[in-house]
């Protein structure tokens, strides 16, 4: 236990939460964002992997940004690509 803590102390990254709760969405907008992404992928007859590439890019651009913020950034880019105004 102590040596594990010592190793962990040497790392700059925060500890991982240990909750085992069955959390689905923290807020309703997160569920709606996911649903919009799924429906846009379906509607354009594409694979989820197409959206995934936008998501990976958004996460990679700002690794410290909250996950769902990155998700919405990816969704904005994906939607703009599909429906240019």
């Amino acid at each position, binding site marked *: 236990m102590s040596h594990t803590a010592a190793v962990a102390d040497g790392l700059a990254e925060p500890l991982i*939460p240990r*909750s085992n709760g069955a959390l689905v969405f923290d807020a309703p907008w997160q569920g709606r964002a*996911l649903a919009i992404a799924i429906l*846009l992928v379906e509607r354009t007859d594409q694979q989820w992997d197409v959206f995934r590439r936008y998501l990976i890019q958004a996460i990679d651009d700002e690794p410290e940004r909250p996950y769902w913020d990155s998700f919405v950034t990816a*969704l904005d880019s994906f939607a703009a690509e599909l429906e240019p105004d």
Partner: protein
Amino acid sequence: MSEDHHHPIPRTAVEERVDALEALLIDKGILDPAAIDAIVEYFEHDVGPMNGAKVVARAWTDADYKSRLLVNATAAIAELGFGGPEGEHMIVVENTPEVHNVVVCTLCSCYPWPVLGLPPNWYKSAPYRSRVVREPRVVLAEMGYVVPDNVEIRVWDSSAEIRYLVLPIRPDGSEHLDVSELAALVTRDSMIGVARL
């Protein structure tokens, strides 16, 4: 979580972006509001670790099913009625006394929706995604599971299509339990591979 319309909490910028995009797509006739609600409903009620737990319990009690599951997980999972987006290419990895499996998506948040629902926040966090590959034993210990030194840890990185489910070791002393009682023992974290039963 807050549905108190009498005292609404301030809307965040990101929330307003979702509102705006949703309104635009509905207005253009691209999206149907009912379809959005149906998908949210699906994630809140129809999918989740309870589905994966049924798969695991069946595999523990039916050797033929377990064989099929390890050979073609997608088909075997579909036998129990589970499938759909993010579950089209499933692989089940079996824990043994010699090998412990743990799953990650190093690049984003890929996860087997039909059998586990949506991933927990820590699964999507940068520390988990980066560290579990580099030092799985340390990360698992921090999460409360000290893997014995003589047990090999295999880390499975979800790729563009493949989604993984861990088949945990059946707990000692569970011989007298039936399938539904066994399913109740199976936790989400054990099927990701960050906990044991």
